[in-house]
């Protein structure tokens, strides 16, 4: 019963008026033995999943286990009253990381099952493994003692945040910290994201010329639609199977390993995406907006948008963005530009960098978040596509067959 109550509470805490109530169950959560058992189970399954993830020799299995691990982490965040983190973890930690790992596994042809022969999957002989285990165990033990001896109560900076909450322009303390009190962090974080995209693009480098198809046909699927002019939705599934089968034989079974081959022209998937993609845009907007008052904000919102793009790619939807490469780059940097712009505007107004005036804070935070969400989504998509949001148009195997 208590569990049910609690979840209901949590759902309400996205409601505008009930912010303080969101945490009212906390007394219960530290006392109740039922919840304690639940926590212990969570911890045990987290540890077990991590162990299995790293122990298994099948990389595909490892990745799937890691995705499950990420979802369990999201539950753990929820238990620790960190719903903002839970949202981001579920979307980015589990979802996007899983997508990236799987697509890389597809690129490392047949890497799956690689470790199935004896030896090799682990670095070295048993004594070394024993030594490493022992040392790691010691380290963890020492850290555990340190954690154990920490004071049971330590409010940290929560009082300071609460004191200035009014001035931050948002009533969600996490958003206030992210975009106002410690906006520097977020600014630099966006920079890190951009650097990662640049790095990925450089690393992908010449790959783009020869092996766009090798990236699991994702390349093919996203450039091809741009050359399509006629609406193809009307063509039934029967007509669509023709070209797909041809592509399938053309690329060979492994080229499509990254993504189930049937997915690309699957009418069910396409129908689903058509229904869900607009809803996801609305959800992204909602999450962004609600982030001012309750769990949400730019990062979950961006992750939802990115997930929508992945779905569109998966379904090879024509509705994909028709962007020039230049436009794509602008989208990638837009978040940073706006962030810097606001910061410098504050300097110009004789305030400190990123020190918003109180009356304008809400608007500025929302502005930065909105642009950042789009940039974050674009960045995640670009990371998936080897650093490029938009590939240079080229005739692909796929479009050849279609035309």
């Amino acid at each position, binding site marked *: 019963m208590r569990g*049910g109550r609690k979840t*209901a509470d949590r*759902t309400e805490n996205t409601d505008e008026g009930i912010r303080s109530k969101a945490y009212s169950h906390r007394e219960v959560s530290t006392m109740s033995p039922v919840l304690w058992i639940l926590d212990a189970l969570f911890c045990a399954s987290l540890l077990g999943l991590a162990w299995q993830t790293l122990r298994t020799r099948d990389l595909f299995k490892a990745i799937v286990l890691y995705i499950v691990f990420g979802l369990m982490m999201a539950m753990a965040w929820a238990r620790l009253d960190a719903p903002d983190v839970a949202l981001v973890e579920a979307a980015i930690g589990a979802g996007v990381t899983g997508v990236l790992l799987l697509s890389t596994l597809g690129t490392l042809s047949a890497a799956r099952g690689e470790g199935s022969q004896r030896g090799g999957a682990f670095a070295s002989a048993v004594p070394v493994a024993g030594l490493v285990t022992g040392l790691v165990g010691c380290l963890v033990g020492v850290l555990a003692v340190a954690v154990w001896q920490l004071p049971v109560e330590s409010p940290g900076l929560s009082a300071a945040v609460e004191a200035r909450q009014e001035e931050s322009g948002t009533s969600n303390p996490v958003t206030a910290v992210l975009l106002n009190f410690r906006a520097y962090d977020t600014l630099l974080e966006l920079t890190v994201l951009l650097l990662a995209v640049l790095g990925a693009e450089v690393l992908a480098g010449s790959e783009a010329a020869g092996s766009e198809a090798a990236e699991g046909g994702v390349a093919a699927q996203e450039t091809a639609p741009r050359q399509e002019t006629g609406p193809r939705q009307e063509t039934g599934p029967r007509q669509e199977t023709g070209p797909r089968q041809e592509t399938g034989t053309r690329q060979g079974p492994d080229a499509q390993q990254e993504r189930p081959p*049937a*997915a690309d022209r*699957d009418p069910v998937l396409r129908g*689903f995406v058509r229904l*869900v993609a607009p809803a996801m845009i609305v959800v992204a907007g909602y999450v962004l907006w609600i982030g001012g008052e309750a769990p949400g904000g730019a990062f979950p919102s961006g992750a939802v948008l990115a997930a929508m793009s992945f779905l569109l790619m998966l379904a090879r939807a024509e509705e994909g963005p028709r962007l020039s490469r230049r436009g794509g780059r602008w989208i990638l940097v837009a978040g940073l530009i706006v962030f810097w712009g606001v910061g410098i505007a504050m300097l110009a107004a004789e305030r400190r960098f990123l020190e918003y005036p109180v009356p304008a804070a809400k608007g500025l935070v929302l502005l930065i978040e909105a642009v950042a969400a789009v940039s974050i989504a674009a960045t995640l998509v670009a990371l998936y596509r080897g650093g490029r949001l938009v590939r240079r148009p080229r005739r692909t195997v796929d479009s050849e067959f279609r035309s």
Partner: protein
Amino acid sequence: MTLLDGLSLLSIASGCFFFVAGSVGMLRLPDAFTRLHALTKADSAGLGLLVLGLGLQADSWWTVLRLLLIWLLVLLSSATTCHLIAQSALRRGAALRRGDNDE
């Protein structure tokens, strides 16, 4: 405990039962198709019951609406995912054979 509480307790408990049944099915059934069958159907029903139970506890219609929306989205996506996995299994042709191996 009011009647409403009792109803929602009942609903949540049976929802959990469906989840457990679905998970048992996934672990025990012989091949990919039957596992999917057990998992998606039982989980959709289980989630529906959970949503019902939570909806009875909700303060506002707005919350109920959002709960229903979540259920609807999960229904849609689990049905689609089930279809995709099944199709992939069918194409790979591994599914039914696995049953023989497992038992």
